[in-house]
């Protein structure tokens, strides 16, 4: 098969405008927050199912989550220490009738209706693997061979952008592996190879590369350098909406024993287990497909159709 010819470059702004005009995404007036059309959803669903087919033989335990997680589980993760700029908390009104009247009368300068909002016991989920750790930890020591979970959730990242690939809320399909360092490294490299094959089957020219999380501030520089020097994070990259650089559509992460320490996840021997995750941003993959093969799904190459919508 010949190499795929890249679609013409479109700026993020023009690409997003096209998605709106063709009715694939619905604008809300807030950057990064969009409604999805039936066509777009069918594409996201097809990508999700493709990941499911490719990993069916792994026999992972399925866990699906709503887009919020426990505040206690979130706090244990250390996410606020690392990436405070990305989180979204859930605040609620907990007052009585009198307090309700008071806040309704508050001026915008006094905080308006939000004046009495209090942090609740839930936060928006930053990645679909986060709700998994407390659940696995609560079961006690891992089986000898470790454990594997197939998670999925809408996730929130506070990074508004005109780039349609940078949504504030998006779906992640993420496999989470628990076990020995050798098992996690094998899981990480296996998923990188599998992802490259998956993207090839979808007619997308992808590469993998070393990466780092967007850690906050000066300590974040140290964290990011440490993550890179230990080769803990890799991404799969394809052209999506930035004409000058590739966009990450998935990542393959080795957490060493960070989450095991944070949540008390123990191996059979009682030592801190090692963990890793391999996840895909489903909307990003859908956008990469639209960017590469065009907005008319009927006109996509037959091989891509067969990959995404195989006949039973």
């Amino acid at each position, binding site marked *: 098969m010949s190499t795929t010819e890249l679609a013409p470059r479109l700026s993020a702004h023009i690409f997003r405008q096209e998605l709106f005009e063709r009715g694939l995404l619905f604008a809300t007036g807030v950057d990064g927050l969009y409604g999805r059309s039936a066509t777009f959803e069918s594409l996201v669903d097809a990508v999700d199912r493709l990941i499911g087919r490719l990993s069916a033989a792994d026999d992972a335990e399925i866990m699906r989550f709503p887009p919020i997680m426990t505040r206690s589980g979130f706090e244990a993760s250390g996410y606020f220490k690392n990436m405070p700029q990305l989180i979204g908390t859930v605040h609620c009104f907990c007052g009585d009738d009198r307090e309700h009247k008071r806040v309704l009368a508050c001026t915008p300068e006094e905080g308006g209706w939000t004046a009495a909002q209090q942090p609740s016991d839930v936060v928006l989920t930053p990645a679909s693997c986060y709700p998994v750790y407390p659940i696995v930890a609560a079961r006690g020591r891992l089986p000898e061979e470790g454990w594997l979970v197939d998670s999925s959730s809408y996730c929130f990242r506070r990074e508004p952008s005109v780039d349609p690939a940078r949504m504030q809320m998006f779906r992640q399909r993420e496999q989470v592996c628990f076990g020995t360092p050798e098992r996690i490294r094998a899981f990480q490299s296996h998923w990188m190879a599998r992802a490259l094959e998956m993207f090839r089957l979808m007619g997308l020219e992808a590469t993998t590369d070393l990466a780092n999380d967007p850690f906050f501030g000066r300590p974040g520089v140290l*964290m990011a350098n*440490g993550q890179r*020097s230990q080769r803990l994070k890799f991404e799969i990259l394809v052209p999506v909406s930035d004409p000058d650089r590739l966009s990450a559509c998935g990542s393959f992460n080795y957490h060493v024993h*960070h989450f095991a320490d944070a949540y008390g996840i123990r191996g059979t021997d009682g030592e801190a287990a090692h963990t890793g995750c391999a996840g895909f941003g489903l909307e990003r993959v859908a956008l990469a497909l639209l960017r590469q093969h065009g907005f008319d799904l009927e006109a996509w190459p037959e091989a891509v159709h067969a990959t995404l919508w195989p006949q039973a």
Partner: protein
Amino acid sequence: MLHETVRNVLTGIGDLAGTADTLANDADLFDAGLSSYGTVEVMVGLENALGIEFPETALTRDTFSSIDAIVRVLERLQSGAAAAGGGAIDANGWPVAAEGVR
């Protein structure tokens, strides 16, 4: 002097509780249990203790790999700052910032 300052900061890091006092100067701090968060605590602890700021180029895992490695970076910063400023130094040997004149 700097070795002592570094060791004092390490003593206050949870990851190295109970071991920092007896670590050899060339012992690998990560092998001794220093985590990524712990490394950030060491960085902040040294910056507070010495009134300095590590340049971004020094914010690497290598910088914090042993007491000797940290001291080497601090000495380099010290000599670089002295060369650049050439002015007075305080009791720790760090250059004293001159008042800006406008």
